[in-house]
């Protein structure tokens, strides 16, 4: 058995003259939760759709569960589960009818179907709602039902394309707990998201921008490797003005707004603190606090994306 559930080599997709995915390489270990991050239109969905056999690749190869996506798409399809942000359920059918339909599509029958239906209803917390029309369910429920339908046939590999779009924060947290549980049961999960806080749940992540892979590793690796300089979190009386005056200073490598606070990347912690206080008071802005923080993934990605954009132009 191979150590990797998914192996991708130079995978490329062109739509006419536009290159949506440009020679992407990565491997996903068995049982990992693998995060696939990037802005909308960066090429995440295109990559996932190629791996699921929904889209033919222009060049490059990939194997999913040991099967080649170009030459054995049927075998790939038997071994994967796929769920997209659209929660592809039939709104005009009941919960049970949806489960029966997807079960039937994967050839589940009799006892097996009954067992799996029971499992999905329990997992999605839909016991007692079997005959509700799916359109009457809230977003969180639909999301869990869609997940349940995607893994009815107990696939070893699960693809989730923006699975938490349009659901409330509590449902999002519950959903990630579910994903964690699946991963401990040995299922490999490849998930795309643009919520960077969600990336912290992943064992491993890659960042894609304009079709190209720009970084990869575990979340802590990425934080350590890419941002060695200190990040200072600044609370002030006016965050917008503070941003305007600090970002133009030569000592501020990187400045961005996080909620009501400012994150400033500097060369040296003590010098930076002094410079920030001076600059703010010179502009009539009151400094409430400055402290060094551990960089979040968001800091890392904004930093990487800025570097990438600067390099490109």
């Amino acid at each position, binding site marked *: 058995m191979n150590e990797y559930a998914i192996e991708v080599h130079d995978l490329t997709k062109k739509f006419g003259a536009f290159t949506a995915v440009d020679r992407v390489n990565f491997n996903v270990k068995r049982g990992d939760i693998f995060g696939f991050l990037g802005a909308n239109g960066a090429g995440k969905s295109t990559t996932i759709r190629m791996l*699921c*056999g*929904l*889209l*033919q690749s222009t060049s490059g190869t990939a194997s999913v569960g040991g099967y080649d996506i170009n030459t054995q*798409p*049927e075998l790939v*399809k*038997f071994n*994967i589960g*796929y769920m*997209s942000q*659209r*929660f*592809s*359920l*039939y*709104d*005009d*059918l009941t919960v049970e*009818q949806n489960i*029966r*339909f*997807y*079960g*039937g*599509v*994967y*050839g589940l029958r009799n006892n097996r179907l009954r067992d799996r239906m029971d499992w999905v209803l329990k997992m999605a917390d839909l016991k007692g709602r079997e005959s509700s029309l799916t359109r009457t369910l809230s977003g969180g429920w639909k999301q869990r039902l869609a997940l349940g*339908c*995607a893994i009815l046939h107990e696939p070893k590999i699960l693809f989730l394309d923006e699975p938490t779009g349009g659901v409330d924060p509590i449902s999002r947290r519950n959903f990630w707990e579910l994903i964690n549980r699946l991963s401990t049961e040995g299922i490999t999960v490849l998930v795309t998201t643009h919520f960077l806080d969600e990336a912290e749940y992943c064992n491993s992540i890659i960042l894609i921008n304009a079709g190209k892979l720009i970084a990869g590793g575990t979340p802590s690796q990425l934080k350590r490797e890419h941002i060695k300089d200190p990040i200072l979190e600044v609370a002030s009386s006016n965050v917008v003005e503070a941003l305007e005056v600090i970002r133009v200073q030569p000592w501020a490598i990187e400045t961005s707004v996080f909620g009501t606070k400012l994150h400033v990347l500097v060369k040296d912690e003590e010098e930076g603190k002094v410079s920030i206080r001076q600059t703010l008071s010179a502009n009539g802005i009151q400094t409430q606090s400055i402290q060094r923080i551990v960089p979040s993934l968001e800091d890392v990605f904004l930093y990487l994306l800025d570097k990438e954009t600067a390099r490109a132009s």
Partner: protein
Amino acid sequence: MYRSLRPIIIKEFRQIRRDPTSLGMLLILPAALIVLVGYALNFDVKHVPLVIFDQSKTSTSRAFLDKFKQTELFNYRFDVTGYNEIDGHFTNGRAKVAIVIPTNFAEDLLVGRDVRVQILVDGSDANTGAQAIGNAARITADYSTRLVVSAFERMGRQYYQPIDFQPRIWFNPDLLSNQFLLPGLIGFILVLTAVISTSMTVVREKERGTMEQIMVSPLRPRDVILGKTIPYMLIGLVEATAILVLGYVLFDIQVKGSILLLYAGIFTILLGSLGQGLLVSTVTDSQQVAFMISVFSSLLPSFLLSGFVFPVSSMPIVLQILSNLAVNKFFLVLVRGIMLKGVGFSSVWPQFVYMIVFAAVMLGVSTKRMQKRTL
């Protein structure tokens, strides 16, 4: 094979049952069309409103005019006393035909002079006008013959007619237009509902993302297409049966030929129409666009170009060539032949060949396009 189709077929029927609009379109629309076409779309021109300008005002003129008042071809409305009144009635549509009897009608008849009776017709509705003139001419000719006969008898001579014209009408002896239209309606309804419902059911799944979910499953595109079209094929056959039953109950339209052959024809045109619907669904991802294309590509040709209402032989040559794109044109020949004339396979096989070619092209092209899109 059936195992992989079963879930889709069951699901499709469940969705149809839950969706009142599609169910309405599939069952109520055909029923409404039959009743409308059977009763209202009637080319037999009867009860044409008539006014009479009788300047003679004699028992002779009244006897002649009674022939117009007694027939159901005309609907006698008023007596008028001048041309300007006729003008008024024509303008606001109270009358479409006026008969003008000259002052010396009775005297001239008595002495055997030629009598001129004027018939004025509102020609804005060409078909009604032409038929009304024909009917009026026939009534007048009949009456003239009767006058000649009695004149001869009075002179003690036998009247004889050199040529005795004896029309006998085959297949539809009463020349009822619904005998002709209702069989044609079967094709029209089947094409319309099959194209619309097939394209909508596929595009709806594309819009909701469920098609994508099915495509990542091990089901092959062929299974998906079959699973989605079989329910509509069955509904089409039920629909056709409903039309035949309604036509028989309401209008006494019977199938003179082989029912089996008729159903073979219905099956073939349904196959082509389902293929056409699938083809439409590969062109667009929006339900609205799919609906528009379906209506245009099915309703217009099968209504206007097929010979359902307007005979193909009287179309301009360009349209006659174009009419070959309307599969309903061939089905019409077949269905009228089997239902009204009772013909067998030997006279409708060319129609079968055409419809099978049409179905093969539609299904082939749409399956090709579908596979290309999803891979």
